[in-house]
């Protein structure tokens, strides 16, 4: 279901946990090639976590050892270890020396923490960006393989959003999200661990606070979700309104509906504001509540711990450390919470991307493709039936053969099925009935890439890519030498024009070929066909009028390109039609007449009428303008 536009809301509803997990698992596969980076980043972030809370612990040590040493309670645990280290380096003697020692240690922790943090973030982000690169590259490659029908029904702008917005939506969880998620949990666990080491009863009390915070965060999501969804719905409703009204502005103005439409816009906009306010009412609750819970936790620690200090059960340093540790809970919880919506939208993006990647590729190559190095160029359509949509037959029982080296023209009204024939021959679409044979081999037996490498195609509207002229002639095929490009251009008389440009063959072609005339673009198309030197030429002549000089250049180019090749031409020009071996008249999906120009004219049938319609008389117009 690629082409559903605003399905984000619906998707979110459908995202149950199991499904989420499957998506995440599939996403993680992209990180797999960088597993060592991810592991390194994880290890670093876990090293990093305890350093982040070195402050409270060192403060406790400073108090217990130097500020308010309690002779009744000898230092124990890490505090004792610190004292021994201080004595070892000769800084355990006096209070001021002790502070230098503690401060130096703190500085060291800080430097190490900054360094590990830098490293783990850079390593994780690099891995994430490489994974994103691979994903985008995979999407682009996949787009080269999906059936042409996909392009028929999906506008290019929409396809582009897969490569841009959707991939970007994943960038965050790939680069920092995963690591941050784990390191936040690590920090929280580490805080709990430290607390338990120092004093378990106070620790349990603080854990209760932590539980209250996470419980509140979880509950909060359930109450915030419907309102934030309703807000998003209102935002998209308003954008929809705006988009529609900007597009239909002429109608609004012509029916004097400005005042009424402004009133309606205000209505939609007000509804959006109300929904936003409702969402704000919830979201504004989160941070103050979490902070308040943290403060209540501190008050409890102070009250309970204080009484223990009074009774001499714990040291004052322990109490101070606990107060500081309890405050540190706030950050990881708030950070986890803020990452949740990012994860949500990333899942929506990944859903869209995977549905694209799951589109079957165009045409599965046959089990054992027929060996076909280079075709000679005999084409046969045998009772071919084809419809783009079921039962709406575009071609009905079409049969014809084009012998080696023959030039055949297709003539008919717009929509008769001429272009379809060339599309089928290149196997852009699969036929429903009948067979198409190339050199006697069914084209379904041939690998599509191999099949197409026998054709040179010159379409009405030549597609030019940004790049220089040379690269537009040989496209990406580096095996075509610059000399061959020049020869091809000379053959179609484009050489003179190209060399007149500032940078000759290396002149840049502007976006979509701006700067070249329609005729010149056509000539580039012919040069391309010549440079690729393929046995069969498919030509859809341009209908647009071109000046007479270019016209004669094109006529010459057509002749040159057809030499020595089998050629299929959708003809719009008198000169072409008179020089082909055979003309097939297509009408309403059937071949009605077949023969050469003279014989068909003599029949005075469809061709004779079509000929008058398409190639006949335009002598009057000039006189009339004058």
């Amino acid at each position, binding site marked *: 279901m690629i082409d559903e536009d605003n399905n984000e809301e619906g998707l979110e509803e459908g995202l149950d946990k199991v499904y989420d997990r499957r998506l995440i698992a599939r996403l993680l596969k992209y990180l797999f090639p960088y597993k060592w980076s991810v592991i390194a980043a994880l290890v670093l972030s876990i090293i990093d976590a305890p350093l982040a809370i070195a402050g409270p612990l060192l403060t406790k040590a400073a108090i217990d050892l130097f500020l308010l040493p309690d002779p009744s309670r000898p230092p124990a645990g890490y505090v004792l270890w610190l004292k021994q280290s201080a004595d070892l380096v000769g800084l355990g003697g006096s209070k001021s020396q002790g502070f230098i020692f503690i401060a130096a240690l703190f500085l060291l922790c800080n430097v190490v923490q900054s360094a590990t943090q830098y490293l783990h973030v850079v390593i994780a982000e690099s891995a994430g960006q490489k994974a994103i690169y691979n994903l985008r590259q995979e999407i682009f490659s996949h787009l080269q393989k999906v059936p042409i029908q996909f392009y028929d029904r999906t506008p290019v702008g929409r396809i582009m959003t897969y490569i841009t917005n959707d991939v970007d939506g994943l960038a965050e969880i790939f680069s920092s999200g995963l690591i941050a998620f784990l390191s936040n949990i690590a920090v929280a666990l580490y805080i709990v661990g430290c607390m338990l080491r120092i004093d378990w009863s106070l620790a349990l009390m603080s854990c209760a606070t932590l539980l209250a915070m996470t419980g509140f965060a979880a509950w909060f999501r359930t109450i915030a979700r419907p309102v934030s969804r309703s807000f998003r719905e209102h935002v998209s409703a308003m954008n929809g309104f705006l988009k529609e009204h900007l597009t239909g502005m002429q109608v609004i103005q012509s029916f004097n509906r400005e005042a009424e439409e402004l009133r309606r816009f205000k209505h939609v906009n007000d509804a959006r504001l109300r929904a936003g306010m409702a969402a704000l009412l919830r979201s504004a609750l989160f941070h103050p509540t979490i902070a308040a819970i943290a403060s209540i936790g501190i008050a409890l620690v102070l009250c309970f711990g204080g009484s223990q200090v009074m009774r001499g059960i714990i040291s004052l340093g322990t109490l101070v450390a606990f107060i500081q540790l309890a405050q540190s809970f706030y950050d990881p919880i708030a950070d986890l919470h803020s990452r949740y919506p990012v994860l949500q939208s990333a899942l929506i993006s990944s859903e869209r991307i995977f549905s694209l990647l799951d589109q079957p590729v165009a045409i599965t190559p046959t089990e054992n493709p027929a060996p076909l190095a280079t075709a000679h160029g005999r084409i046969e359509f045998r009772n071919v039936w084809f419809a783009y949509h079921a039962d709406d037959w575009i071609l009905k029982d079409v049969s014809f053969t084009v012998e080696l080296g023959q030039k055949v023209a297709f003539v008919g009204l717009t929509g008769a099925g001429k272009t379809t024939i060339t599309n089928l021959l290149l196997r852009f679409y699969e036929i429903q009935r009948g067979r198409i044979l190339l050199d006697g081999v069914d084209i379904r037996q041939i690998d599509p890439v191999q099949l197409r490498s026998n054709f040179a195609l010159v379409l009405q509207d030549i597609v030019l890519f940004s790049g220089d002229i040379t690269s537009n002639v040989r496209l990406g095929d580096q095996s075509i030498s610059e000399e061959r490009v020049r020869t091809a251009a000379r053959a179609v008389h484009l050489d003179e024009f190209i060399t007149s440009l500032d940078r000759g063959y290396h002149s840049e072609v502007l976006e979509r070929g701006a700067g070249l005339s329609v005729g010149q673009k056509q000539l580039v198309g012919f040069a391309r066909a010549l440079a690729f030197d393929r046995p069969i030429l498919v030509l859809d002549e341009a209908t647009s009028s071109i000046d007479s000089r270019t016209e004669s250049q094109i006529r010459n180019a057509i002749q040159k390109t057809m030499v020595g090749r089998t050629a299929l031409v959708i003809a719009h020009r008198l000169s072409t039609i008179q020089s082909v071996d055979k003309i097939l008249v297509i009408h309403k999906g059937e071949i009605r007449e077949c023969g050469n120009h003279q014989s068909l004219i003599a029949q005075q049938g469809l061709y004779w009428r079509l000929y008058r319609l398409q190639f006949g008389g335009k002598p009057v117009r000039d006189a*009339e303008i004058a």
Partner: protein
Amino acid sequence: MVSIRRLLTYVARYKAMLAWGILCLIAANLSKAVVPWILEQTVDGLAHGIAYPLLLRLSVMIIAAALLQAGFVFAEERLLTGAEMAIERDMKNDFYAHLQKLPLGFFRENRTGELMARASNDMSIAVSTSLGICLNSLNTVVALIVILPLMVRLSWRLTALAFAPLLLATIATMVFQERMRSWFEKIQESFAEICARAQEVLEGVRTVRTYTQERAEIEAFGQIHRQYLSHNLRRNRLANMIYPAMQLFVGLSFVAVLWYGGNLTASRNLSLGQFLEFMVYLGYVAWPMHELGSELASFQQVAVSIDRVDSILSLQPAIRDPVTPLAIQAIQGSIEFRNVTYTPKGTNRPTLAAVSFHVNPGQTVGLVGEVGSGKSTLMDLIPRFLEPCSGAVLIDGYPVREIPLQLLRSAIGYVPQETFLFSDTIAANIAFGNPEAAQAEIEQAAITAGMGPDIAAFPNGYQTMIGERGATLSGGQKQRISIARAILPRSPILLLDDALSSVDSYTEEKILARLRHLRQGKTCLISSQRISTLRDADLILVLHDGRIIARGTHHELLARRGMYAEMYETQLLEENLAAS
């Protein structure tokens, strides 16, 4: 600077709300500043012996302060962000109202997507982000004003020592952010390149496949994609320096406090509680100081968005009501073009050149010509969607630019070439020009436009929804609804711009017959590529390259054996062929 002033006029509307919000912000900071003091009292009390009831009371005070603070922060967020949203709403209303006044030419020059980006992205950056930056900065400043004296009270030397690294951090962030911007731009550029390349290849997919260049294209895409990746990786190495560096600065500040503050405490210049109090204060201001730097640095990006919104809001509508409108009540329907030339902006090829003709009320004029011959431009000049570059368009002998716009447009029933319907019910779409129309009138219009049987076949009839979430109509059905919409208000002038192109000639014939009846007394301009549509017009104008190259009735034009006759014969032949 004009643009910032415009933003301020919106801000001024919510000054009460903002003022209360700022008061709450100050109150929140004050109640926050109490907590360290309570901690100090407790710790010092514990160090020197304290009664349990006092300890309990201090704990309760912390809870009270926390609850107060939570309440104030909530109120502040509610008020300030609420004001922000309200400002954004007002600006959007004005933006939309302004767009409604802009002429058709504007919408042809600016793509809808681009305008949408301005209305959504740019506007929210201009409002939310800019106000967000201001309010966050304000919060930092208020916090500093409240907390700094409390810190200085404890020890000014210690305060100075603690703030030195923080100040450095703020400045470093600003400088760094500035440098990162060039990287940001470089990445944006290479991303744009990726998009352009992908778009080209996707659009040229048939060419790529025929010449079997898929592999080469994937490789070429990969090459610029790798470029983007390497930019990103390098930016990544640089940009991620900032956070750890800030952490180091903040850490330095704490190191200084631990060392010097420890000594002060040891020498009894500071109590243990005060030492702790100072550390907590420092925790309050350390990170906001660093954020202040990055926020100040990002203000320039905000300015760009404000400018982009402003550039549209400050456009003067090119087509406006006349300054001294004519005092006319009704329009009879004669139309005259006097030597009218129209050249689209940015080109020098006129789409309409020196066109003159005259139509009496009740007459029908047919316009015929190829695509791009100027038929639509001619039509658009009558309701003043476009303004002629020279010459004049007159209705009832008055220049259209002197007729009040509302009167002018309500006198014209217009069916544009590109059918546009709103996602609403069929009835609402038909009654678009006259929302008060009775159901019978709506049905009558639909029947005249040949849409009656189609609508009757829908399960919900006239209440059928159209558009993305509703029924999908064929091109011909849409065109017929568009015609019904135009004929419902019974305006004296009817413009049909190629309005029957998606309808088959049999249906067209029937619609035309019914319209003929309705057309009596109406001035009518019909353009078409199909001559059969125009056969019985009172006057037919043959347009070519923006000029009238022939005029007359059907029979007169046929007799002249010109382009008209040629087109007619070709079309007859084509119809004949299609039928065989």
